[in-house]
Structure formats: structure tokens, C-alpha cells
């Protein structure tokens, strides 16, 4: 589904990613771990198409296409979803309106009919329970005045509605208490299928108690320094990152 080859990227002239190789197959869950500042969010944002980051060399192939050629919205239409580390507030725009617009854009691009308000509401009712999101948040402005945990749950709720092929969760676990963590993980797990894949970015092991990864990668100073099974996460938990230097 996704092949990243020798990816180098920089921001404001400073090289952040220094040769990333990664392959994600349908049905897989990959965890990317690593200390703060190692480039995890950079990688996530590049996959989503953020322009500030300059890809200096390397390639990304997604479902047989050159991903780097696509605009961010085209990537979204083709099933890439990024749950933001810092979800953005959009004052005055209601959460449901925003999400319906988003879903309809994706549907339009796939030649599907747009959902009207009533059809959309039905869908929302099904999905909202998945993440136990407070219904009152639906009619509030997008992320405005949401608590940290509510923002993260809202990201997962959006994911549940949009049903992406490749979901990238950037530190969705940070700032969540154990209950919230479990809810978010349940959401992710129940959306899992043999046709989609998830990349979970985290620097704690604890999320991986709930979302069991097929592969764990350690990103350190812009490089994947080690990959392994889920036991690698536990090893990192006890030993820290120093031994990988």
C-alpha cells in the first residue's frame, strides 16, 4: 500500500529526515516510536502533504501512485487521513458541518452521491458511539474550546466517519487518561480491516497495550534505526532509547 524509499526532507534548510525506508501493507498496523524531535510529526505531515516541508530526495508510492505529486486534498480523497498531534480550531464552523463537507468532498471525488443532512446525521449517530464523543460537541465550532482529550477523540471520530485507507495517528495518545486511551484505541481497532492500514506515532509504549502493532519502528534523528515486532516497544519501555544510538 505504502512504500517510502530513502526519503530525505528538510524545513527551512535544516535536514530533518535523513533517509527513511518504510513499507506498509494492507491490513497492517505500524507503530513509529522515538524521542521528541526525532522527526515523527515531520514524516506524518509529509505523508499528508504539508507544503512547508521540502522533500529533497527519495520517493513515496501510495497505492501505485507517486504520492508526492498529489495535493493534500487529493491525498485525502484517496484515503489518507492524519489525526493531528495538535488539532486546529476553526471558529464559527460547526463540527458536523465541517465533517459533512469533508465527507462529501471525498465522496464526490469517488463519484459517489453526496449525503444530505438527514443521511449524514444517521451515519454520525452510528459513529459517535464508537468513540463515546459527547454529542454536544457536534454542534460546537470545530475544536474550539475543546479540551485536549476532546480534540483527540474528535480526530478519531472524524476518522471513523471518513473511513480512510491509510490512517496516520500522530501522538493521539498524548494527553489522554487511561479511559480515554482505551476509547480511542477501541475506535481504532473497530475500524481495522484487511483493506486498510494504520500508522501509529507515539513516544509511549502504553497505547500499544491497546492497539497491537504488527511492526514497531524506532525513529531517531531522522532515521529508522530499528524495526521489530511488538516486543520491541516493551524493550524500549524498559531500556529507553539510549542503547540504540
Amino acid at each position: 500500500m505504502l512504500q517510502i524509499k530513502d526519503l530525505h526532507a528538510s524545513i527551512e534548510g535544516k535536514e530533518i529526515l535523513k533517509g527513511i525506508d518504510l513499507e506498509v501493507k494492507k491490513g497492517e498496523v505500524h507503530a513509529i516510536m522515538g524521542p521528541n524531535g526525532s522527526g515523527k510529526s515531520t514524516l506524518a505531515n509529509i505523508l499528508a502533504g504539508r507544503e512547508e516541508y521540502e522533500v529533497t530526495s527519495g520517493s513515496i508510492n501510495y497505492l501505485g501512485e507517486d504520492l508526492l505529486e498529489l495535493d493534500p486534498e487529493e491525498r485525502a480523497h484517496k484515503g489518507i487521513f492524519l489525526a493531528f498531534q495538535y488539532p486546529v480550531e476553526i471558529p464559527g464552523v460547526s463540527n458536523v458541518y465541517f465533517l459533512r463537507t469533508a465527507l462529501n468532498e471525498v465522496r464526490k471525488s469517488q463519484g459517489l452521491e453526496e449525503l444530505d443532512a438527514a443521511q449524514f446525521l444517521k451515519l454520525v449517530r452510528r459513529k459517535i458511539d464508537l468513540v463515546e464523543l459527547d454529542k454536544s460537541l457536534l454542534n460546537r465550532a470545530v475544536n474550539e474550546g475543546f479540551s485536549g482529550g476532546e480534540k483527540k477523540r474528535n480526530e478519531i471520530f472524524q476518522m471513523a466517519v471518513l473511513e480512510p485507507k491509510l490512517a496516520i495517528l500522530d501522538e493521539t495518545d498524548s494527553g489522554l487518561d487511561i479511559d480515554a486511551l482505551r476509547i480511542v484505541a477501541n475506535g481504532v481497532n473497530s475500524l481495522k480491516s484487511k483493506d486498510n492500514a494504520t500508522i501509529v506515532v507515539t513516544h509511549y509504549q502504553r497505547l500499544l497495550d491497546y492497539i497491537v502493532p504488527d511492526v514497531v519502528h524506532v525513529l531517531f534523528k531522522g532515521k529508522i534505526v530499528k524495526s521489530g515486532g511488538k516486543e520491541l516497544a516493551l524493550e524500549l519501555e524498559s531500556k529507553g532509547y539510549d542503547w540504540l544510538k
Partner: protein
Amino acid sequence: MSTEAEQLESLAQQEYKYGFVTDIEADALPPGLNEDVIRIISQKKKEPAFMLEWRLKAYRRWLKMEEPKWPKVEYPEINFQDIIYYSAPKNTPKYNSLDEVDPQLLETYNKLGIPLEEQKMLAGVAVDAVFDSVSVATTFKEKLSEMGVIFCPISEALQEYPDLVKKYLGSVVPATDNFYAALNSAVFSDGSFVYVPKGVRCPMELSTYFRINAQNTGQFERTLIVADEGSYVSYLEGCTAPQRDENQLHAAVVELVALKGAEIKYSTVQNWYPGDDEGKGGIYNFVTKRGIAHENAKISWTQVETGSAITWKYPSVILKGDNSIGEFYSVAMTNKFQQADTGTKMIHIGKNTRSNIVSKGISAGRSNNSYRGLVKVMKSAENARNFSQCDSLLIGDKCGAHTFPYIEVNNTTGRVEHEATTSKIGEDQIFYCNQRGLDTEQAVSLIVNGYCKEVFRELPMEFAVEAQKLLSISLEGSVG
């Protein structure tokens, strides 16, 4: 980074969609202004004698006045002798049905997306259409007259209800109030008159669509709305204009009188031709709008301004009576080379008077957008309250936003609060929308509409939808 800025820039470039001219033979005076021109106007309108005297008095004062220079707008000097002060569509009979109306005119409305047929069916909207300077179609009149509501061209009101007009015309905006108001008083061609009798709740939104058409014709509308004790009326004003080369001056005057316990809600969506990519040829819009609120009365101005090359406009409320309320909700969007200097004045005279100001400025392109607001609490105004919220949103980095709040409190029990913010449309917000599948154009439109929500929700439903469309249109463009 720079490509993002360029993208935003190009988003802000958007062709004016309603640029077409309807060719209806105009019956117009040659350009120029003198006392004879005023006499002809008054005569053509078959006005009562007092009106001519009133106009001439205003004209003589106007000759001694100077154009205001304080607004933060720049434009080449206007030669007032180059302007045509009267033009009317050739035939101006009153029609009984739409079938009798010039099909070309109906076509024009169709192009604007506001066909009269539809409006007639549209529940509760009576339309007094001002085409050029003379009204040619009036609907729903019967239903209104059953309730004693008068809604007609002011020229007609001058013939049929001269005493009523005489009593209130100029009572809020005196003929000599300012340069443009004086000019308007001297030469106004037509406009609307509304009278809502005591205790009557006007059963429909009253609306007027303005359209400037004949080449080089100054447009001087005069609107007078009187809401008698305990009555209510909601009035909608909307307009759009054809594309053209020469600058067009528009100097309207709107007067609102809300008597004891009455409420007037006045909503405007303004979309006049803003000029081409170099800023040439747009409409100059110098408007005086003011209302007076008597005891327990309420006046609300809501405006969405997206057009004109220059906008100079300060809808105001004189809070004369105790417990009266004044409100001002405004969205002013400027793009390309547009300049807007707009805001409000709230003059607190009565006790326990309250005013609320919400102003949302949006600047794109190379435009300049200024908010200018005066809150004045007079000595007599015990316990006056004002709250002002003035926000500016910048799109791109070649535009400007300015805020000039003037506050004058002469009574220690008064409380005046002012909040102001300036923000740039966030790349984070745009990227967030992009990531969810919205293109940048949609994203900007969504973010801007969200930003204006507080104002839009004050507009009547259909108008709010139209306003959102307009705003999106003025933001559209080719995304690179």
C-alpha cells in the same frame, strides 16, 4: 511558504460575476448640476412645493460644503458637473402583473439570480425594485395595505402622503448633515418609503434590490422608514451592478425612525462592482445611514459589504429614548484595490440605553479596510452600556486593516467595553481543511464564513444564504 502566500493571493483574485449591462433606453438629463436641474427633478417627480424648497436649500448649503477628507480612502477628485443627476427607464407605468414588466428587466433579475417571479412566490417577501432611479415594479402591496403598512417609492409617498414624509424627512439626517447627505437631499431621485402603523408587526420582510444601470448616472437613493409606536419591521436592501469603466458615485441616505417601543431591523447585502484588477471603474459608495430610537425602541443595522471600489458608510443609532437599544453587525470584505472605511456611531442620550457593535473586517489583495466607530455617552445617559467587538482578518500580506475606535463618555455610570483582534488566516487551518478533503478555495471560504458567523446569524434566513454565497464568490479564484 511563498507558494502558499501566492495561492492565497490568487484566491483573492476573482472576476466580478454580475458584470453585464442591460440596455433600456434611458430618459436622462445631460450631466451637470445647478438649480434648474433640481427644479426639473422636482417637476418630473410632480413633487409638492415644499420639497423643491427643501432640495434647493440643501443644494445652496452643499455649495458651501467640502468633501470630507478624514476617511482612510483615496480616489481621484470627483467632478460633480460630470454626473448625470436624473435618468429613468423610458416607460414607467405601474404594472398590475409581471407580464407587463419589460422582459429585459426581468432578464436582468434572472441573471442576478433574483427573478421577480420567484420572489413573488417566495413566502413573505414584498419587492420594491428600484431600477435606475425609478421604481418599476411593486408587489405584495395589497397585503401590506390591509394592515395599513405603506411601502412605496418615496416619490409616490411625496404625492400620496406628503404630510407624513414632510414630518420625518430630514428629521434624522438633516439635509445639511454632511457633504454627501446634502447632495443627496438636493438631487435624490427615488428610494423607498415605509410606514408601519402603531402596534403593527409587518407580516413580511420588505426588500429592495437596487441596481445602477445607465452609464455615468450618479445614484442618489433616499430611504425613509418610520415605525410607529410598538410596531416592528424588517427591511432588506441588496444590490449588485454591471461592470463598467467609469467610476460611479453613489450617495444614498437612509433614515430610520423607531417611535416608542418600535423595532426596526435593517439588513444590507452590498455587492457593487469593485473595479477591475487595477482597481479602476468601481463604484464609490458614500452613504449616510442613521436611525433614531425613542423610548424602549430598538434599531439593528446588519450589513454585509463586499462590493464597491470605495465604501464610506457608518450606520448609526441615536439612542434618544430611555431603555432604547442600538445594534450594529457588520461584515466588510475588501479585495484587490478596494477601500472601505466603515463602522458605526452609537449616541447614547436616554437612560439605560444599550448598544452592541460586532464588526468583522476581511482584507485580501491590496485592499484597505478600516473600522471607524464612535460610542458617545451623553451626560443625560445614566447607566448606558456599550459593547464593541472589532475583528480584522487578513488574507495575504499586501492588504491592510485599521481600527479607529472613538469613545466619549460624559456620564460616570456609563460602561463602554471595546475588544479588538487582528488575525491572519492560518495556514494551519487551511492545511487542516485540505487534509480532510477540502481544496484551498473551499477552505478559505469556510474559514471566512465561520469568522463571520456572529453577523450572518443576524440576517434573515434567505439573506444569510445569499450573503454567504457572495462572500464565497468574492473569495473565489483560480488556485494555482
